[in-house]
């Protein structure tokens, strides 16, 4: 196990303002926080509290209006679209509530996709196969397109896809939100196991028992850490 000391994400007075005609909306208000390597953090808060906005900033889908966001030692605020995209590909693994697999690709191809984008060649190391096996998606299942898989299977494929480029941070946006509780628990077990092996996980949820898998919970209210 790694020492949980080095911060992998640092937010210093991060503010996000959405300019609207009816007046500016401050989604994040001078948030400062730090997440260390190997941590499992749950972000909670009522809807509209700004937790999704926070996740989008950390996920490099958006950049802060002001303040500094440092991710794996790099200042995200100063990056252009190409660099942000590259960071999403190599440093971040995204797990969504609605799985968000590409319907036109098979399960295997969905997992291989980020690998292809990064290496610009097919995986000939067996890495993709190995990941899928670990998550309980056998060869027959991996040949299926996502709509032919169950919710739990789709989320497992999505986790494999998130892990394929060995990201520093795993971001989960309500990972069990679209699953029945039994399957939800299984998925949480997978995430907990990944964390035990040293993976940094940040998870947005509004369910207390799901948040309980994390070792730290950050509650957001009105764009601030409560």
């Amino acid at each position, binding site marked *: 196990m790694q020492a949980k000391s080095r911060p992998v994400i640092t937010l210093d007075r991060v503010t996000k303002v959405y300019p609207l005609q009816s007046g500016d909306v401050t989604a994040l208000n001078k948030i400062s926080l730090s997440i260390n390597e190997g941590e499992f953090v749950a972000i909670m808060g009522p809807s509209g509290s700004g937790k999704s906005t926070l996740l989008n900033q950390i996920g490099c*889908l958006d950049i802060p209006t002001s303040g500094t966001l440092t991710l794996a030692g790099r200042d995200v605020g100063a990056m252009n*679209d190409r660099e942000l995209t590259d960071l*999403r590909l190599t440093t*971040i693994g*995204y797990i*969504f509530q609605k799985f*968000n697999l590409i319907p036109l690709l098979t399960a295997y*191809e969905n997992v291989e*996709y980020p690998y*292809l984008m990064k290496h610009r060649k097919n995986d000939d190391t067996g890495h993709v196969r190995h990941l899928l096996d670990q998550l309980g998606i056998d060869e027959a299942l991996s040949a299926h397109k996502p709509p032919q898989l169950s919710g739990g299977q789709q989320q497992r494929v999505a986790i494999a896809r998130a892990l394929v480029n060995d990201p520093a941070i795993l971001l989960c946006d309500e990972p069990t939100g679209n699953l029945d509780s039994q399957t939800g628990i299984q998925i949480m077990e997978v995430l907990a196991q990944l964390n035990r092996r040293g993976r940094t996980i940040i998870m947005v949820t509004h369910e207390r028992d799901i948040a309980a898998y994390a070792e730290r919970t950050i509650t957001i209210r009105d764009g601030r850490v409560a």
Partner: protein
Amino acid sequence: MILKDILLQLSVRSVRLHFLRSVLAALGIVIGVVAIAAMGMMGANMTLSVTGELSQMANNLVVTAYTGGGGFMGFGGGGGSQSREEQMITENQFRDIRDIAGSYGTVYYVYSQSDSIETSDQWGRATIYGLDPDIFAEVLELEEGDYPKSTTTVVIGPRIAERFGLEPGSKLVIGDSDEGSTATVRVVGILKEKGMSMDLNTDSAIVGSEKLYTGIYGGEGEYRQVNIVLDDVDNVDTVKEEILAELNDRDDEVTVQDSSSMLESITSVLGTITTFVMGIAGVSLVVAAVSIFNVMMMSVTERVREIGILRSIGTQRNDVRRMFLYEAGILGIVGGVIGAVASLLIGYIVVLGMVGTTEFFFTWQSLWYIPFAMAIGIGICIISGVYPAWQASSLDPIEALRAE
């Protein structure tokens, strides 16, 4: 390598998923490609066929009076109502020309005029030629009947015979009684079909003796043109230069045309027509472009969420752009290839129908229009995909992910 491209795979599967829609969009390209290729091939075959006919008379020279413009005048010598101010070749000039060119081949003068003609039940216009009777057998080829032996008999071209239902023994009236003198003549022979020509266009003409002609129109010793049929095609330039040197010594008196100058102007006219017709055919490609554009915009709209996913897991903007350009390219290539195959078939039918011969169909000048039209079709498809692809790549990943 490129076939393994996952983005290409996505494009191919997207096209397959919306098979009917894609086929319909590609059909527009097929029609456009066929239209352009068929028109281009028709033009090329016409040009080749005319060139073929004309090159058979490469040994012909036509001398006409200099008109200052230097342009192509004696298109067979017919056409237009005659006025006395029109420049003619004089008897003296003809003698000079014969002195120079006589040793190289046959030299003969031509009277010609466009006039109305009348049969018992029909009225129309035709070119009337007047020739030296001694030359008939040398320059005219008969299909049936005989050469005219008097000032009241004529031979006629096959087209005119067909149009007016004339045969040896039929009578017709040359000239309009309201405007001048007329003559009633008897047809004694029908000429062989000759096709387009620069010296004498006899297919739609009436040919009589010099006396018959001057009897109606006067103007004795004023020739429309002087034709030279050389024994040896290699002498074309020599004879042309000698005539010009002698007759245009002080003033420009005559213009000498060989088949190459006629070929040039016909080729250029046919080229212009072909380009014009292809331009019209090109309109169908514009319509096709609009339909491709529409299908691509639909594809982008339907796949907004997918674009959001691709972007959020690390797909660069230019990769998204590439994916949609591939999609447009696939439609273009499918349409272009089917269009190319179809143009081979339809082009053949069009050429057979419009040109009358497919002798030149399988030449590169003609078949070249197939890859040409194909390239335009594919190019237009890709251009139609540029804006949709750009739009897809500029989507905000967060917004796109929210789409249902």
